[in-house]
């Protein structure tokens, strides 16, 4: 495995995200958790664009699929560890990865990552849950107003977005 693959898998491990990619929700969680890790300042070199399910980087899918098809990918990770500063950042965002009862983890992380992307890339100029919910709905993402509001609070609490002035 190359360094980017190793880093990507170590970050997933640190965030408690399974990398077996069998189910759609797992693949969603892999993409969105790597996005959120980079948003927290743990830069892995993946570039995210806006796809059907929000922020998505083909290189994440390629790296993780490549690695897990390699029979000895787990032993390839042996001996590697992340620097303490990155581990601390990941520990902070991991606290917020648990979904509300009404959502799967993948759908919850999709919501967090999508809202972050829209704000960080200046696609919206508001943090108003109603406006964000309506923009997400235009992209086929149906979330309740409570879920959107709760995601915005979590992004504030994790210092991933600044509070609106």
């Amino acid at each position: 495995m190359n360094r980017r693959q190793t880093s990507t898998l170590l970050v997933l491990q640190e965030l408690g995200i399974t990398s077996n990619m069998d189910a759609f929700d797992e693949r969603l969680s892999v993409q969105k958790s790597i996005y959120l890790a980079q948003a927290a300042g743990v830069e892995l070199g993946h570039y995210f664009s806006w796809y059907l399910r929000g922020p998505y980087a083909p290189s994440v899918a390629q790296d993780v699929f490549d690695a897990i098809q390699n029979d000895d990918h787990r032993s390839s990770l042996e001996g590697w560890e992340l620097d303490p500063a990155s581990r601390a950042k990941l520990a902070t965002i991991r606290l917020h990865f648990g979904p509300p009862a009404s959502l799967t983890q993948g759908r919850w992380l999709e919501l967090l990552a999508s809202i972050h992307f829209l704000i960080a890339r200046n696609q919206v100029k508001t943090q108003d849950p109603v406006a964000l919910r309506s923009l997400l709905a235009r992209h086929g993402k149906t979330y309740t107003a409570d879920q959107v509001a709760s995601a915005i609070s979590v992004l504030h609490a994790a210092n991933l977005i600044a509070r609106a002035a």
Partner: protein
Amino acid sequence: MPQRVVTDAIHGTIELTDDEWRVVDTPSFQRLRHLKQLQMAHLTYPNATHTRFAHSLGVFSVMSNVLRVAKEKLNISAGKVAELRLAALLHDIGHYPYSHLMEKIDKVQLTEEFVSSARERKKSIDLTAAPYPKHERLGELIVTTRQDLLDALGGAERARKIADLFTRSSAADPQLSKLIHSSLDMDRFDFLLRDANATGVPYGNVDLHYLLSNLMVSPSGMLGFSHKAMSAAEQFLFARFFMYKVVYFHKTTYGLEEACRQLLRRCRDSSLYGVPSSGATIEDWVKADTFLGFSDGWVDDVVRRAQEDGNPVIAGLAKCIVRRQPPTLIREVCELKDRSVAGAAEHCRNFLSRCRDRLEKLASDLGIDQRFFLVVGPVPVSLEDRGSIHTSAGAKQIEEEEKDELVKIFSRGADEPISLVDIPTSIAHVAANYVHQFARLYLVTDDAAIAERARTTVGEWDKS
């Protein structure tokens, strides 16, 4: 209204407006004249010296032609048409010297980190030193922060809109950025034709005019080709496959590029010759005028100076590039993997596993430093971009997220197009189930006897 005309070897006459010409005339855009499109392919194909500058104008030309067909059906305003043309022109503005070569140094596999004994050592990955950003990120930074482009584009707000299109960040209207990023995208049409023309390898020739004259738009806004152009679309996919296999992954070119990647990675890790230690430094460069000199010549200068380095591995890698004495290909293992069969490609897996377990001893037996071995792979090549997804199930999973990017065909009488690889009567339907894959072992040496001994030893390493 077109005011300026450029004559291009691939597309003939390309017409630009004064606004577009102002962008071309900026120092930031002119830098693209000093980035070769095909990295080090000119060391194999002497005429392959064409640049990102010519390619960017080519993509602009294809986009202009597509918009002529699609703008009314997609109901795209004149303002958006202008933005899409500029996005096509600027889509590669963030490329590094030698294009993808330098961008990918974080994917390099150094032998001392790859071999089995490396697993026993404690290793730390320091992610506080950011990897080199992808060229899309640099492009976004360049367009939204460099004053020459901000002036030429008419201000920060418009520059942001254009960057959003070519980085596919635009959540406001995803259909528009799809025009740039789908598999029928303008980028691929141009690079296949241009690279085929420059190398003299004919496989990249695409029936562009026939495809464009059969471009259709569905009621839901999906782009695709009429069933009449199915063969031309199939040939487009095969053209890409063969160009990767024959030109982009040519054994000599790839060996020299790998030597350069490993050299730059070693220089970066040891802070030598001004190679930026992290992606943050490169992002800082972009905002300063030093960026204008960040071109192929900048890498050439690093390589030239590294020839005299006290580290024999760094000096050896540099000399093989400057003197054009490519790393010797000791062994290449190729196979065609059926995606419906689970697991990794057996021969490549066996070979890389033996390299991991045995290279240290082989280097010791040959009396050489193991770091002169360059291990490459597995490298996949397939009809679509999902080359590394080896199983049919894996390919299907990816399609859910990347399905916009597949080449689509309107079956006779159908309102909406479907993916070409899903049409049972298409040869692409069968071929998409396979992925070609290779693994290679190179050795940087000018000693033919050592190379021959290495060849003899690794000859059977792919066998079960």
